[in-house]
């Protein structure tokens, strides 16, 4: 049945800066079921990327617990971590900087296979490289090409192939399509979807594009300044958004349809800085509904319906 593959509890990551503590990720908890996709949505600086990096321990969290298949990975030492890294992979946003420019597709993939002893022997590695290329839809003739000879979509396919080379169970997709053109974006999204079906992968899909995450995720967590403000199954979130920020975000998506006078709730103001936030609702400064109470304490994530969590003091009132 629905088995939890990853659970994150009270994850925090603070960075020291010249102006104070930057609360990049502040008390974030969620879990993902096997074969499912969690979308993490938010604007720049909301901590979505840092969350992804923390899960893979590419960034060491300040505090919190991360359980992968029941094991607390933050307590693992280097070599134990190495064996678990095989199961968790990441796909990056920028297909131009996420590949070593001096390695051909073949070199990049076979190095990954060889160094991590996923395949041994020249023949086995060669076969696996070709197999991986076929899986992600790269033509065999491209085997000796360098990344700079390829377009963004094909480079992103190499990035995916590299992640798949480790035979992971779980992949963090960090804005995998935002640097690509629409027609290529759809190709990559379809590929990721097919892979999930075929290999039973679980994803965290980090993006700022609600239309993409709506298409892709089973559950969505909306982040604002390091905190999850709303979390719900995708359909529920889109049909019945509760948090004022989620609503503003939804109404800000440009929809490619002819519409007369689409109602839009525009947010005023800018995202404030996540450095030394006080004990208040972090969205209060931009929120139309903010009252005194919102500025005095930080709201907790509360379940309002099965599976639908919101962090807003005025839920139900407005």
């Amino acid at each position, binding site marked *: 049945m629905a088995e939890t593959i990853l659970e994150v509890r009270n994850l925090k990551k603070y960075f020291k800066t010249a102006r104070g503590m930057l609360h990049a990720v502040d008390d974030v908890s969620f879990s993902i079921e096997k074969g499912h996709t969690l979308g993490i949505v938010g604007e720049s600086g909301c901590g979505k990327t840092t969350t992804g990096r923390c899960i893979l321990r590419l960034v060491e969290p300040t505090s919190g617990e991360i359980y992968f298949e029941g094991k607390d990975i933050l307590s693992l030492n280097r070599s134990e971590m190495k064996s678990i890294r095989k199961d968790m992979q990441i796909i990056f946003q920028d297909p131009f900087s996420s590949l070593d420019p001096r390695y051909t597709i073949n070199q990049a993939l076979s190095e990954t296979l060889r160094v991590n002893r996923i395949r041994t022997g020249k023949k086995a590695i060669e076969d696996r490289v070709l197999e991986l290329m076929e899986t992600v839809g790269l033509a065999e003739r491209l085997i000796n090409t360098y990344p700079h000879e390829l377009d963004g979509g094909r480079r992103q396919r190499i990035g995916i192939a590299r992640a798949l080379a480790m035979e992971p169970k779980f992949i963090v997709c960090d804005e995998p399509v935002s640097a690509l053109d629409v027609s290529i974006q759809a190709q990559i*999204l379809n590929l990721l979807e097919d892979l999930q079906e075929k290999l039973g992968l679980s994803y965290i899909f980090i993006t700022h594009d609600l239309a993409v995450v709506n298409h892709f995720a089973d559950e969505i967590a909306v982040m604002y300044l390091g905190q999850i403000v709303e979390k719900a199954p995708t359909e529920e979130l889109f049909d019945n958004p509760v948090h004022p920020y989620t609503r503003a975000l939804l109404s800000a*998506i440009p929809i490619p349809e002819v519409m007369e006078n689409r109602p839009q709730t525009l947010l005023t103001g*800018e995202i404030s800085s996540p450095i030394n936030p006080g004990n208040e609702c972090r969205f209060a400064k931009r929120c139309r509904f903010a009252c005194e109470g919102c500025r005095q304490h930080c709201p907790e994530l509360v379940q309002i319906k099965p599976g639908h969590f919101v962090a807003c003091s005025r839920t139900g009132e407005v």
Partner: protein
Amino acid sequence: MEETVKTTNDDIVLELENLRVKFVLETETVEAVNGISISLRRGRTLGLAGETGAGKTTTALSLLRLVPYPGRVECDKLVVEGHDVLKMSQKELEKYRGADLAMIFQDPMTSLNPVFTVGQQIADTIMLHDPTTREDAMKKAEAMLELVGIPAARAVEYPHQFSGGMKQRVVIAIALACNPGVLIADEPTTALDVTIQAQVLALMKKLRDERGMSMIMITHDLGIIADVCDEVAIMYAGRIIEYGTLRDVFNHTRHPYTEGLFNSLPNIRSRREKLKPIPGLMPDPSNLPKGCAFAPRCRYATDACRAERPADRMLSDTHMVACTRYDEPGFRIDRPDRD
């Protein structure tokens, strides 16, 4: 006084005919733009949509005559606000840029000079086109800032003290400082967050309507086009392949590429619908196919498509499509009409 060139219609502020831009390099010739014609009426907004490498930005730079070396621009006619831009001297061009036609670039982070205050930068632009004292220009600059929703007191601040959205507002203030008749916006919100993007687009719409300005909006986001534009030109491999009013192109789509673009977009309303991407890649602009540039990726393509470049076909007074298949009576693409 220079003689103003008669346009076919007094209402037309910008007319461009058969623009071709080539970049001749040592080993190859890149055909960036291959015959584009645009006419823009006063107060209207034209959306230029297309993917990377379609020639959108090159078209915009050609309008300003700012195509960088080794680009070669050829054009039959370019008339903006009654001035024949092709005949302008370097000096006249400098006056024309900013006063008649202004441009907003994609990245607000790099379009401002970090060593001057934003007030100074707006005032400098005003003084370039309008001989006034520095004090007057600064006053006007502060008014411009207020106009784009920034308190006048922030005129003395430097660009790094502004956030991305605020910087783009400053860039808009600079572009509008000399009251241009036409504003070109090249992906003005791509570098911004969604909620900030909505703010900036709303601001641009408001200013456009207040000033009766014409606008050319360059973007890859069909959602922005639907939000801002009256007319749409879809570009592919340096050509406009479908051109019409927003309704023509969005609700009565005719070109297979336009259809493909719509099918590639995740639909916010029906989430489980499978995406139908366009197979293949944009053709190499230094080696364009002989026939229709889209034919290799087009599922409707026939031998006739591959043999010859399609001509522009008017389907109605406003709706143009460049597709050979419409020679056959009764040819329809799969996307249904809406309304």
